[in-house]
């Protein structure tokens, strides 16, 4: 497929990069990324991936846009209040770049539906806010051999890591089981600075783009942490856990698990 003149202009800042070029831009246009959660992390990730010309973007979220979302979820506007987040996100992505095909999944991910949803995508972005969903995404991606970016944000801190099948640890290598309900504070309880989603969600988009174009080093086997108050980025080496119950040498988790979640953060 040849670029149209409009595409040459639109993606000119990419095409001029030696790491991207026309070849990389074509890879982006032919790629597909699924974003689970159209919130603080998913919003910037979705906008940058749409702008970058990722050909197919899936977005999954069961929620509607709430006034308390707008302090950080920049893909939604005040006019979108009450609208399904996936619809609002799709409209913004297509307004940014009509080249992009957006698939919406207005549902919670569960052990029943996640395999069907992730199947057709090259890369998955975990932009969820609760541990049951994060463990479900991890296990499903390990089982389906899908690369994904995990991230979390709270208060003035954020962190992310990338799982690539066969290369380096999964989320469960680092954290064996979800913490009990309410044992670890959520953003709703503890707060989060709005731009944190912008920083970490954009880094997730960056990992997806690098994976697709096949350039640079991903955050496999490394956790990148960011502390906004001290303005410090660190990368912490993550060993592979050979006893990991899902990706280790002798997996004991071979079926997806729906963990219980506190009522207040049932939603993605």
């Amino acid at each position, binding site marked *: 497929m040849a670029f149209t003149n409009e595409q040459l202009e639109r993606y000119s800042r990419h095409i001029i990069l030696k790491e991207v070029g026309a070849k990389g831009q074509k890879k982006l246009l032919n790629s597909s990324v699924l974003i689970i959660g159209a919130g603080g992390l998913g919003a910037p990730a979705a906008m940058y991936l749409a702008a970058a010309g990722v050909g197919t973007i899936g977005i999954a*979220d069961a929620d509607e846009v709430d006034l308390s979302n707008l302090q950080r979820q920049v893909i939604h506007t005040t006019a979108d209040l009450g609208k399904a987040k996936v619809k609002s996100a799709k409209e913004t992505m297509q307004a940014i770049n009509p080249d992009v095909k957006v698939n919406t999944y207005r549902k919670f991910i569960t052990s029943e539906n996640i395999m069907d949803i992730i199947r057709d995508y090259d890369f998955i972005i975990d932009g969820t806010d609760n541990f049951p969903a994060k463990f479900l995404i991890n296990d499903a991606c390990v089982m389906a051999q899908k690369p994904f970016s995990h991230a979390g944000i709270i208060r003035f801190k954020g962190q992310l890591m990338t799982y690539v099948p066969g290369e380096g640890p999964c989320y469960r290598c680092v954290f064996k089981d979800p913490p009990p309900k309410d044992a670890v504070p959520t953003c709703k309880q503890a707060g989060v600075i709005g731009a944190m989603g912008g920083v970490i969600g954009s880094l997730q988009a960056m990992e997806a783009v690098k994976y697709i174009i096949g350039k640079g080093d991903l955050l496999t086997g490394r956790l990148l942490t960011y502390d906004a108050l001290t303005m410090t980025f660190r990368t912490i080496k993550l060993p592979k856990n050979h006893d990991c119950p899902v990706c280790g040498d002798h997996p004991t988790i071979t079926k997806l698990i729906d963990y219980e979640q506190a009522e207040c953060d049932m939603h993605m």
Partner: protein
Amino acid sequence: MFIKVAGEKKEYPEGLTVKELIEKEDVETPQYVTVTINDEFVESGAFESTEVKAGDEVEFLYFMGGGAR
């Protein structure tokens, strides 16, 4: 002895266990923290019996939710 905790050089007495270090460093939600020493995981069941040695590099890894809502 000197050790590194989250990249920072710190002085602690010899014989310090991982459990004691978690207390001294005032780690948030200590029962759910993951610990690595020199890029190897320490089993949470072994925090009390594992001693930190001079020159060790200790990292604390925290659960972090956040994202959508």
